[in-house]
């Protein structure tokens, strides 16, 4: 399972030096049960089941602050995204179809949010 996350994310979590810069930067830190810096070591330790059940998947804003700041190119948001992907694939399908997009478009809406909505939007 860890291998799967590593493959999907394209990230080598062993590069993490446990500096905590990601968690120090993350705007959603307080709402998370598993903090960004823990993600890397938990993938290495094979604790993916805990990650699949973690609240963090749905609290991460995909703002990429951690990706920008991680000094070791571990980029936790990509690991989080990979785990989120696994959960969604298990459930089956995206919540949003590309055909629905045009009517929901809003000039204020960041593109990242739109991409995330494919996975997270549940109405």
């Amino acid at each position, binding site marked *: 399972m860890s291998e799967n996350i590593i493959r999907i994310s394209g990230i080598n979590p062993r590069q993490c030096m446990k*500096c905590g810069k990601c*968690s*120090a930067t*993350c705007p959603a830190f307080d709402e998370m049960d598993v903090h960004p*810096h823990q993600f890397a070591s938990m993938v290495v330790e094979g604790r993916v089941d805990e990650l699949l059940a973690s609240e963090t998947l749905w609290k991460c804003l995909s703002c990429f602050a951690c990706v920008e700041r991680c000094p*070791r190119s571990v980029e936790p948001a990509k690991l989080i995204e990979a785990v989120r992907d696994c959960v969604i694939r298990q459930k089956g399908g995206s919540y949003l179809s590309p055909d629905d997009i045009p009517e929901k478009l809003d000039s204020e809406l960041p593109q990242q949010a739109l991409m995330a909505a494919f996975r997270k939007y549940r109405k």
Partner: protein
Amino acid sequence: MQRIGVFVCWCGSNIAATVDVDAVVEAVKNEPGVCFAKNYQYMCSEAGQALIKDAIKEHNLTGIVVCSCSPRMHEATFRKTAEQAGLNPYMVEIANIREHCSWIHKDMKEATEKAVILARAAIAKVNLNAPLQAGESAVTKRALVIGGGIAGLQSAIDIADAGYPVDIVEKSPTIGGKMAQLDKTFPTLDCAACILTPKMVEAAQHPNITLYTYSEVEEVKGFVGNFNVKIKKKARFVDSTKCTGCAVCTAKCPSRKGGNEFNCNLDTRGAVYIPFAQAVPNVATIDTERCIHFKTGKCGICQKVCSAGAIDFEQKDEFIEEKYGAIVVATGFEILDVTKFDEFQYTKHPDVVTSLELERIMNAAGPTKGTLLRMSNKEHPHDIVFIQCVGSRGNTCRDKTYCSKICCMYTAKHAMLIREKYPDVNVHVFYIDVRTPGKNFDEFYRRAVEQYNVDYIKGMVGKVWEKENGRLAVQGVDLISNRRIMLETDMVVLAAAIQPSKGVRNIATMLTASIDTNDFLTEAHPKLRPVESPTAGVFLSGVCQGPKDIPETVSQAGAAAVKVVGLLAKDKLVTNPCTATPNELMCNGCSSCARVCPYGAIDYVEKEVNDHGKREVRRLATVNSALCQGCGACTVACPSGAMDLKGFSNRQIMAEVDAICR
């Protein structure tokens, strides 16, 4: 026809576990010229060498091939062995079947096959080898030290004490380097100036030391024992023989907007300046970029106030040419530019400073006269946050991959000094790891935690921003309690990574000394020859070789000095006989070879030649064999194939290639 012996070494299991040494012996037995082949456990051992010597005598061998480790390890050993058995040492070839076979291959069949091929190539070469005679060259008994920081000063003093003249070339107006900017020094907390200035004075007064400050190395020619160096003494526009260092000019100079480098640009200086009170030499220098006279032709106030008549607007750069036997590089380091780390607000807020800036703020001769003050409003701070590893240990484009080594200790030093002098100030340190190997170093750090109540937080700072009240908000994380930390502070201090001085690439190119991917100078061997560059006659001292603190710098400086003294003590050096020789009949005098020769060994003469009965005067290349280092660049550059290298002739190399492709 040569009579060749082949000796295949097992290197214990280093080679024999991966290369079938019996098979190699069998395979080479029928190669042209081979009349003896044998394998043995350790060829470099006395028994192994005896085996070689006996075989040379018994079989009247005229050349040998040793299949063993890299020639860098034992070529010299086996050449001596051959010489003792009466063979010319240049009739020895090494086939490297360890580094090039057993250490890099796993499959025995493949490794053995390659070992046989390499042995064959070496045999093909020996078949064309000819005995060579090494020459001798004299040693100039004078050393050059580039860089006048603590590393360069210590090396120079040690060489000078051994009785040899030394010149120090320092690019800034004074010697002393970064250590002169420090306040107190770990682990003993003695004042940097108190221990450095005696060394500066000692160097300046030493009868064997000549200082060239405000000077740079322009050109280096020659080779070990015989370097020819051109030094540029930049014009100070102050006559150093007249200037008394009274500093009247520096006080009166009206152009004072520019930053004062010595105080990390936290205050300003005049266009005519003396970097600091104990500068050596204590002589003013005019910064022409800022001087009003140089810009508009007006002012000239310094000239009017100087009672010594030392100001000389007409002064010109001076060039000095000198010969040296050895060169020590001691060009030190600079602080990484932290402007890329915008999350810390370094460029936006004056209360965010680097550790070197803090050294100046804490120093009695600094911009605040040694009182710890916020640079924004000159008020006393109540909280200070230190952030370690800024730009160190990362692998992104902002970072250096290495640990800067000194920051953990100087941060603990800063924290303690502040708590000692201002017990009301709360000090927090964000760290990733605290790395304090070294005598009395961990005890030093523990003292900061246990006796001085410095708050060490395992974690990083994500961002810093200015609050409405003008103080700084710090958002970080404590990884041990797994919790977010929010602090309000008055100052943030960044332990910025260190990196080699900018000019080092230029110096390395002039010296043909190699540098690593981070621009640190490379050692000849990382463990066994740590103060020598791979370029003969060039030695390394201080941070230019890698991050280190003062105690380590001084030890290395002494070690480099011993190596220099060892070289200068020799009257003659044995020269490499593998030098280039042009074939007069083939040379067309095109100058291609002279253009590529890094040692300036090639010249041209007009000479009469007899080309198959036709007599004419031609322009021909000649090689000064004392200068030629046998690099072979010219042999490749020559379009007519006229240039050949003794011991590595074109024929020999082609024979090796043929043997490999057979």
